[in-house]
């Protein structure tokens, strides 16, 4: 059974490049990908996760308003009975905050993992493999030389 990942850019953020590349990387790594694209509301993530019985939800945000866009997100997921690991990545805070602080903020919102904007898709994929106890051949996952 394929492992299904829902991904999208939350809020009114229109940064499309990162999520497009992440979609391709996940696809190439053997995941079933549901890419909701940019400007995706919380409700759309919840609906897609329910409809596709998602194993993981990957949220992207690059315009600095992630915290307000994500407030209450995990309550909605829980209410809808979604049981998926949740990651978030991107420019999560405006300004020069240090990343440890940002990570703590988003972990307290309920995300399982928090990534900075320099993260290579490989890192997210490796994390998914571990968190979901997947057993695919490791070299299937090699995405950068």
């Amino acid at each position, binding site marked *: 059974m394929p492992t299904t990942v829902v991904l999208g850019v939350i809020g009114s953020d*229109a940064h*499309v*490049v990162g999520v*497009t*590349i992440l979609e*391709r*990387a996940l696809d*190439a790594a053997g995941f079933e990908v549901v890419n909701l*694209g*940019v*400007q995706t509301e919380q409700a759309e993530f919840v609906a897609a996760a329910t409809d596709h019985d998602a194993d993981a939800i990957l949220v992207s945000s690059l315009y600095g308003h992630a915290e307000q866009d994500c407030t209450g997100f995990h309550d909605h997921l829980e209410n809808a009975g979604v049981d998926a690991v949740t990651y978030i*990545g991107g420019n999560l805070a405006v300004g020069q905050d240090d*990343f440890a602080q940002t*990570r703590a903020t988003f972990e307290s919102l309920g995300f399982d*993992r*928090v*990534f*900075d*904007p*320099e*993260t*290579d*898709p490989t*890192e*997210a994929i*490796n*994390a998914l493999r571990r968190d979901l106890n997947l057993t695919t051949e490791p070299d299937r996952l090699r*995405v*950068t*030389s």
Partner: protein
Amino acid sequence: MVRDEQLSSDGLATIDEAVRAEWPTGEAATVDDAIAFHEGLPPSKEFATVLESATEPLLQPRAGVARLDEQIELLTYLEETGEADLLPTTIDSYTRDNEYGKARTGLEKTRESDADALNGFPAVNHGVDGCRTLVESVDGPIEVRHGTPDARLLAAVTLAGGFQSFEGGPISYNIPYTKRGDLATTIEHWQYVDRLAGVYTERGVRINREPFGPLTGTLVPPSIAIAIMIVEGLLAATQGVRSLTLGYGQVGNVVQDVAALRALRALGEEYLPNEVCVTTVFHEWMGGFPPDEARANGVIGLGALTAAIARPDKVITKSPQEFQGVPTKEANAAGLRTTRQLLDMAMEQRLDIDGVESEQDLIERETRSLLEAVFEHGEGDVARGAVRAFETGALDVPFAPSESAKGACLPARDDDGRVRLFDFGDLAFDDEIKEIHAARLERRAETEDRSTSFHMVADDVDAISNGRLIGRPSESSRSGGVSDAD
């Protein structure tokens, strides 16, 4: 279904009434009143006249702040200290989203606190009189630059307000900018804008229109940009636009950029009616900039050199502070002067580079193929054809967020740094063209000893901001992310 036909004067009047009722400042935006104002402007402020009669590329920055007095100060600075030939007024995001109430609040906040609560000039809120004060206060021609999918009220107010150039178009301000804008509706909206420009033109005030060439600004293959420019140009010409500036954004390979600008001009002149005066605009690199002003100046320098060889009619300059968002006026002026110095020094000498002709042939062939698909999809009607071609993916834009586009094609640089297609999606390219792209990318794959894949795309997107043109594996491995995955 939308059709490529000129709006009737009744149709125009009906829309005009509705649009101008959307916000109180709309009422004053009448063509009759505006003509006299335009006629009172000196020739040095006639955008189309200045641009079309220039013998060397004119330089134009981007710039917009909330307050009128500060916008005047900013533009005066860019004219005097930046030596800008053409002036911009960049519109704020709320106005682009037609959120005039939020724009008003932002403007009020800015007036009270002196801190800029808007990222541009809320022209609809400033109204016709505010725009006229701006136009009167500066010396040069001035253009509205924005990114507004539904720019009808903005056009009504700013054209009545004395602006003689208006950026954007139904594809170029929809597909790259928004997720949910329906393309057919957006085309209808821009038919109003273009018809309004046509009405001004017919009454003796030639309004310059400028479709936005860079699109998503990220590795857009030239033929896609050119095809869209021509589609938007045809739509505008139908509505009576007679001064059209077709745009193209630098990809960073000089041969490809020069070839693209020449193809843009040649095909623009070929496809557009004779009564339209076609000019071209070159945008300095619109992708990610190095987070370093010194390196950013290197990127700007390559753009200036490209412009010196290709000689577009206009260059939109970047500033060394590009990576951090809106530049200071000093940095904006610096970008203009760095460009000017290199452009002038390079234009005074013959610089003919090899390989431009064959690249231009390829670009033209691809563009014709895309345009034919549009015409076929519309059974001869370019408006319907554009909608349907985007639906099927026969015409597509890489990294387009819009649901009106398939967004299925993916670009990558070849071994020489030229932008090719790695994944064609459903683009209307014949097999021979596809084989050329694949062969070029295969050569890169050999050089890099890896297979052609989306990894190249990912590496290419960041390459210039990392100091390189092509995202080679050794370069991309430089940037390691910080995360808690390990």
